[in-house]
């Protein structure tokens, strides 16, 4: 132990407090009782470390989805809670399962939901592309900056991310509205004499999404571009390749994993976005997150809201699996 302390003087500084906590815990009768009881059952400390978060996630993450699935198949009723049970005792010992596909049929038949899903995908796809076009040059510039600048610039990318998302979206109302910053500025310049309507349009939603999710695009792109072997670019230059062509044939293909990860990180939350369309979009800009919210809070139709959630999840399964694979590949690459 002494050898260890000599090796880690930093650990030693904390050890007095930690030892005190540990000693206190061990003196505490319930701790010893629990330990003895768990050991008798064959539960070791290791198991307990896994079991606590495992149980938490099962209860508060997995079970809720099963409930959503269950309610999506049940019928609406005007009561509290506003849905009928799926399993019912019919007669003596007969358990009856009432599966109701009506909610899903309703989604398929009503044009509103189709439009909302398609529109969400469209808005998310265009915003992702805009994020990429804007984020790539920024990530590239940061990755090629000197190392002192790099940390400052990265901090500046992350800093807005720590301030309230809601307030950052709110800021755009003041900028985009009819007597807002942009219109006032353009009218002062004399470029326009009528304000351009920007708030409550799809344009405002794009701006809001690109603005809010830009750091998600920049960070994975940066970490990819920063790792790139610069001698490859020198080799291309030595062989007489023009810078722009080098970018297209060397840099761009090599940064593909970063592009994929960043795009998915923007696309996935953008599809289910609620706050941005609710604040910046018009009443007719349908997005699925907003439809779900309305079904739940305004129409109080829990089964249809659950069916919308299940359908949204099915829509996102492919991008989520792609993202996890991309991140897994990235993690393995980093270990090599």
């Amino acid at each position, binding site marked *: 132990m002494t*050898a*260890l302390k*000599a*090796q*880690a003087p*930093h*650990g030693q500084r*904390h050890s007095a407090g*930690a*030892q005190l*906590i540990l000693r206190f815990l061990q003196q505490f009768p319930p701790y010893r009782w629990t330990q003895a009881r768990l050991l008798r059952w064959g539960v070791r400390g*290791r198991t307990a*470390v*896994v079991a606590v*978060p495992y149980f*938490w*996630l099962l*209860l*508060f*993450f997995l*079970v*809720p989805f099963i*409930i*959503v699935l269950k309610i999506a198949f049940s019928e609406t009723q005007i009561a509290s809670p506003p849905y009928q049970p799926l399993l019912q005792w019919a007669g003596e010992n007969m358990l009856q399962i009432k599966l109701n596909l009506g909610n899903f049929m309703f989604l398929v038949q009503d044009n509103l939901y189709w439009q909302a899903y398609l529109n969400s995908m469209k808005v998310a796809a265009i915003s992702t592309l805009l994020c990429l076009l804007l984020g790539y*040059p*920024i990530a590239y510039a940061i990755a*090629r*900056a000197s190392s002192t600048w790099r940390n400052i610039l990265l901090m500046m990318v992350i*800093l*807005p991310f*720590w*301030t*309230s*998302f809601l*307030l950052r979206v*709110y*800021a755009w*109302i*003041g*900028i985009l*509205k009819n*007597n*807002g910053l942009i219109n*006032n500025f353009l009218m002062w310049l004399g470029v326009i004499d009528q304000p351009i309507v920007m708030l409550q349009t799809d344009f405002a939603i794009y701006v809001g999404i690109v*603005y809010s999710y*830009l750091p998600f695009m920049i960070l994975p792109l940066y970490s990819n571009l920063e790792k790139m072997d610069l001698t490859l670019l020198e080799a291309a230059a030595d062989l007489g390749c023009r810078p722009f062509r*080098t970018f297209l044939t060397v840099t761009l293909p090599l940064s593909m994993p970063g592009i994929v990860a960043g795009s998915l990180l923007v696309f*996935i*939350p953008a599809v*289910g976005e*609620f*706050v941005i369309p609710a604040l910046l979009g018009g009443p007719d800009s349908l997005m699925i997150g907003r439809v*779900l919210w309305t079904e739940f*809070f305004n129409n109080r139709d829990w089964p249809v*809201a*659950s069916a919308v*959630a299940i359908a*949204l999840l099915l829509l996102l399964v492919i991008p989520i699996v792609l993202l*996890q694979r991309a991140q897994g590949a990235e993690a393995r690459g980093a*270990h090599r």
Partner: protein
Amino acid sequence: MSKRFPTFRVSALVFGFAFLYIPILSLIVYSFNKSRLVTVWGGFSTEWYGKLFENTQILNAAWLSLKIAAINATGAVILGTLAGLALARFGKFRGRTLFSGMTTAPLVMPEVITGLSLLLLFVAMEQIFGWPSGRGVTTITIAHMTLTMAYVTVIVQSRLSTLDDSLEEAAMDLGARPAKIFFLITLPIIAPALISGWLLAFTISLDDLVIASFVSGPGSSTLPMVIFSKVRLGVSPDINALATIMVLLVTVGVVIAGILIARQEKRRQRDMQLAAAAGK
């Protein structure tokens, strides 16, 4: 290519950071505006700050949000550390795939789905077990902990997997019990990661509108819920004042935390080098 003056790269940075920061700066500038019409300049004034501190609805909501955020962050760090430790150090265990899937899924799940599913769970639990009776602070805290522990898990796991485990192995060889190793060696080393995890969990909770709206009950409106209902009706200058205060607090907090973590990291690396030099 790198020898030329990088006009393109500098302009990309200038444009990018202008896009990121002009909205925030406009919030701050117009919080000092005398005119009620937010974007029409009517002279310098701090009257909206006064109005803000008279608004008990906002102050109560802010206090509630801060309480929830602090409890949530502490719980999330404990749960996330356990989960990160299990994933980074325990190798294969039964149900690992499901476990790692469940720790990363909340990160990419749309908030509307997380909120809806947790609310339906709380309603079902109340029906069956009679707990939680009604919804409010407890349910919001549980929901936020489920979301933010995922962030802490990722931070702790990545910190531990880049960490050399030779110190832990040495302690084990010398006969230290696992719990002792954790508290005396692992915990002090990953402390900076835990601090940033705590801060992240705190800000996410403080900022969350969607999940909190689903799982809150009457009389437990958090700050984002109050802001949202006010902002929905249009801009209001006292929200600008609130935004300015929050932006300043966050900036100061992040910069201080960044400096402290960097300093801690530097000290740790120096200690390691000293130890390595002494060992030779």
